[in-house]
């Protein structure tokens, strides 16, 4: 395998609905943004593409990827679809990485979209729930928020996690998004706002859940030689990992924790893992990505994380999977303020916390899925684009606001997640 770089990226605004654009035009808009941002790159230099979108039901169009390929003028170059539920975008990013790392392509376009506005919210929830076992899970009351509610209920039981800790995730991510013009639902929320919002599935309120969106995102990956030739400020992808778990939550084992290098088995005496409280696939993905990138202690060695916070609860759970804190400490981790941006007033106080490079690790500075929205096939690529801009230190240029720029960000992690944790990807990006 040879080194792979991200050389440019682009996104559309994520919105409740983009009736004025179909999926082809949304991707085209993100693609043109990416091309404009790297003048050395032209369409003819792209060797092929991978296209991510989750649900054929949402678009009522099979083989939609072929229509994007021709709309962008990339025929007859190679292309294929990548699909893996909510992790579709992250899997697509890694498929493009594989295309370049293997030497098959010099420059590969990863492009993703979802148009979720064409059906009503509850039909959309039904479509999403079809990504659970349709014999045993879906007919019982198939609803992803219900599944996540059961997972976090068990997390609360095992570890004492509270709804206020979950609400703090919503406060953080929505306030971060006030500085991100691409975000769908920036808001100045309080813990009380989150808790007094309509209950969806106890204990998750509507403010604990991400929204459905229309949107597209692209990332262009290239070999070292192509990146050098095309100019710009490339960012190196130093680690990729992915993992899986049983489709049905009910089937998850109750065994031992998969340990990261900085952990020891005595940290987890008596903990039955992953059960339904943790995402084993996320831990596996992180372990593989850290091994490839040579990361021994992620909290100390990463400068920021963009993770798949489809729910406030899943951000807390995922911080543990990624080893930013130990299993069981996700709640106190958010209480401690370690994942907040130090230059934003969240209306919260973190008495014991003074940020240093070693203990501070902003999580979802972009606003995450909770505030940016979740147009499924685009989401994992949106994370790649935000991470790319962070590492280029071009947040101010792209967002028109420097608030979210993490000073001297050198290494970031992106995390994409499907189902109740069935497919999860982790990729590490580094400034060169």
């Amino acid at each position, binding site marked *: 395998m040879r080194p792979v770089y991200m050389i440019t990226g682009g996104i559309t605004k994520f919105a409740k609905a983009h009736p004025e654009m179909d999926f082809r035009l949304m991707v085209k808009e993100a693609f043109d943004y990416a091309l404009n941002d790297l003048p050395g790159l032209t369409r003819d230099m792209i060797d092929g593409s991978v296209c991510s979108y989750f649900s054929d039901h949402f678009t009522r169009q099979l083989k939609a990827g072929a229509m994007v390929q021709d709309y962008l003028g990339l025929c007859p170059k190679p292309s294929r679809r990548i699909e893996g539920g909510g992790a579709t975008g992250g899997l697509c990013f890694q498929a493009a990485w594989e295309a370049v790392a293997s030497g098959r392509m010099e420059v590969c376009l990863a492009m993703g979209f979802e148009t979720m506005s064409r059906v009503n919210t509850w039909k959309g929830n039904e479509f999403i729930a079809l990504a659970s076992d349709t014999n*045993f899970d879906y007919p*019982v009351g198939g609803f992803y928020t219900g599944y996540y509610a059961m997972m976090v209920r068990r997390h609360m039981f095992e570890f004492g996690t509270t709804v206020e800790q979950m609400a703090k995730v919503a406060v953080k991510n929505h306030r971060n998004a006030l500085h991100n013009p691409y975000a769908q639902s920036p808001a100045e929320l309080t813990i009380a706002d989150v808790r007094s919002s309509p209950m969806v599935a106890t204990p998750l309120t509507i403010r604990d859940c991400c929204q459905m969106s229309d949107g597209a995102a692209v990332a262009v990956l290239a070999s070292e030689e192509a990146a050098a030739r095309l100019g710009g400020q490339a960012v190196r992808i130093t680690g990729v990992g992915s993992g899986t778990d049983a489709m049905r939550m009910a089937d998850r084992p109750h065994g031992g924790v998969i340990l990261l290098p900085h952990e020891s088995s005595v940290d987890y005496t008596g903990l039955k893992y992953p059960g339904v409280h943790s995402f084993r696939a996320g831990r596996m993905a992180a372990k593989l990505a850290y091994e490839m990138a040579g990361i021994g202690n992620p909290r100390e060695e990463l400068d920021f994380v963009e993770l798949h916070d489809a729910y406030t609860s899943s951000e807390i759970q995922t911080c543990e999977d990624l080893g930013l804190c130990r299993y069981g400490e996700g709640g106190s981790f958010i209480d401690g303020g370690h994942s907040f941006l130090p230059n934003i007033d969240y209306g919260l106080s973190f008495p014991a916390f003074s940020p240093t490079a070693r203990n501070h690790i902003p999580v979802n500075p972009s606003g995450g899925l909770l505030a940016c929205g979740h147009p499924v096939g685009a989401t994992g690529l949106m994370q790649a684009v935000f991470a790319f801009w962070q590492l280029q230190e071009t947040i101010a240029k792209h967002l028109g606001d420097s608030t979210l720029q993490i000073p001297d960000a050198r290494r970031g992690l992106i995390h994409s997640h499907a189902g109740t944790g069935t497919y999860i990807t982790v990729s590490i990006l580094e400034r060169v």
Partner: protein
Amino acid sequence: MNKNAKLPETEEGSVLFNVEPIIVKHHYEIDYLHSYAQDSPFFAGLTKGTLLGSRCTGCGYTYATPRGHCMECGTRTEWHPLPLEGRVHTYTTCHFGGEAFLKETPFTLVLVEFDGVDTLFLSRLVGAEPEEVAVGMPVRARFRRNCTFKPTDVYFVPA
């Protein structure tokens, strides 16, 4: 050859929501002839008031939700009757849901754990108010008299 050939006109029209851009209503509906295949005995069992899990003939791992082959070792499983009493492993009350289930809200989902069984079973809990449900609460299986051959032919009540 007929230079005046015409497509027949219809009165079908379209339901129009907007004109700039044009937004029309498309209806989409489908019937599947779905086979439960190797999982069929589970659904047949529900009609007889039994709850069938799986037991691996290789490593002995037991599953509350049946599967034909073991997830741990790949060996074929055999049918394994479950106890009809268990405990709530986790729970939620859904106030919203997918469109198909909206009319049933609020409903309570539970993952049930059984003594001596390695995995869990997803079901509905009835007969308890949302605030009465707790992790560890004993529950008992009940079966519908009029079967629908769905996993909701079994549900749980407080034991």
